[in-house]
């Protein structure tokens, strides 16, 4: 099993990359960067949303009741140690032959792509769940028991305590879990383009790999797409950081208007040991 590239020695220079990235034709068009980014974002959004729909309620429930933590933590760690690429191909090999729907799906895949897209999305969801799940229950578990007692003492019911007290306090950790899930999914969606029919930025990378010495479609296109993947990851992370600032209540984040004093600071008697 020799690779077609084993013989290819000299790669086109990295100096071609700026020129590649500033050529308008490489951005527009059916296989341009803009379409690839749109597909990449769509795969990522679908996978992370589905994972959050499963992991958030489950994590809140586990954190609130304290039941099943050992089992869930063990499972989540096991999933994290599994190589994403292996899991991806296992699902493709076992599921794809059973899917016979071959029509195009607008914004996602072209004709024939569905049998590959479905196993890929399943794996992306499976990979995104552990980060969200473990951070959610850890966030709820980390809530100061005194705060929980106070909420119960005020007459809140169990679900009120969970949704009005534990959830807001756990939000920073929950969002940081979503951030790691997004990064993981963006990276794995890239290597998913190893499979046929799938789009996203990985398409340009694996298409280029077949003709790596080509100064247009080869190494320069691969590196350009790879740089856009990295930018997408960084931008997505920053956007979620911004979301975190917006949705985390100021009482939790401690970011008050200038001049305001945090109640806990004012009440603090002994200075913390540094």
């Amino acid at each position, binding site marked *: *099993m020799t*690779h077609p*590239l*084993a013989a*290819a*020695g000299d*790669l086109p*220079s*990295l100096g071609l990359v700026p020129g590649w990235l500033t050529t308008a034709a490489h951005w527009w068009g059916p296989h341009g960067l803009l379409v690839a980014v749109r597909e990449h974002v769509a795969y990522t959004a679908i996978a992370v949303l589905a994972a959050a729909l499963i992991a958030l309620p489950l994590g809140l429930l586990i954190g609130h009741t304290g039941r099943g933590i050992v089992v869930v933590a063990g499972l989540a760690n096991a999933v*994290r*140690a*599994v*190589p*994403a*690429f*292996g*899991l991806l*191909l*296992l699902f*493709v*090999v*076992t599921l794809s032959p059973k899917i016979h729907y071959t029509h195009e799906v607008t914004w996602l895949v072209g004709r024939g792509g569905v049998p590959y897209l479905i196993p890929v999305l399943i794996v992306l969801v499976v990979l995104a769940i552990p980060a969200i799940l473990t951070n959610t229950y850890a966030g709820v578990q980390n809530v100061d028991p005194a705060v929980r007692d106070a909420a119960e003492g005020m007459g809140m019911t169990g679900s009120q305590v969970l949704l009005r007290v534990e959830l807001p306090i756990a939000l920073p950790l929950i969002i940081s879990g979503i951030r790691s899930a997004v*990064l993981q999914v*963006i*990276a794995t969606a*890239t*290597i998913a383009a*190893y499979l046929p029919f799938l789009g996203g930025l*990985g398409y340009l*990378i*694996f298409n280029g*790999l077949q003709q*790596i010495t080509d100064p247009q479609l080869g*190494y320069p296109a*691969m*590196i350009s797409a*790879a*740089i856009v*993947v*990295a930018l997408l*990851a*960084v931008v997505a*992370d920053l956007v979620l950081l911004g979301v975190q600032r917006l949705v985390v209540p100021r009482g939790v984040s401690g970011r008050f208007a200038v001049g305001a004093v945090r109640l806990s600071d004012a009440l603090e008697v002994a200075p913390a*040991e*540094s």
Partner: protein
Amino acid sequence: MIAVWHYFRADQSEILGWLWTTLWLAGVPVLVGLALAMPLGWLASRVRWTYPPVVTLAGLLYTVPSIVVFLLLPGVLGTRILDPVNVAVALTLYCVALLVRVVADGLSSVPADAMSAASAMGYTEWQRLIGVQLPLAVPVIGAGLRVAAVSNVSLVAVASTLGVSQLGSLFTAGYHAVRNGSTPILLGLILFALVAFAYDGAILLAVRIATPWRRAVSRT
């Protein structure tokens, strides 16, 4: 499972070679990364203003997907795209990025009392770092090493998308197989899990040996 075993026996020498490549590709970067992260992490914990830029830069590097780094390095280093050195260098970068913060936080987490006691006993700053601060930071650094080692093992598999031969080649072999493709893929997943498990256990053991006082305390 029997099919998996037969597949292994039929191609034993090649698969063991891949196992060996995977072991060093995942392991060496952790050791080199730790060696590089030690002085950087010490600096970030000792000189306070260096902490935010070092940790931010490391975090930024960690957001970059591994395939991007695997592809960039040949152009930067002048290596071939299939050269395993690209993978080793890329994983070393990730390990440094992860461990710098861990080392800095680990060194900072040592109780001030222990540091003062060492100074009062006449330790110089260097002796105190080696004799007191570093050993007390071992549990924190060890936990970071476990994360680095396990994530390294699964990143090695990504390199097989580019054709670098190691255990991940079992995945591509299964994908290209005409039938029973899941057999080599399952074998690959099992072997990767064993490698991750072995490194995890080795680090746990090393931390245990390096922190005898923890057991002395737990016995009482």
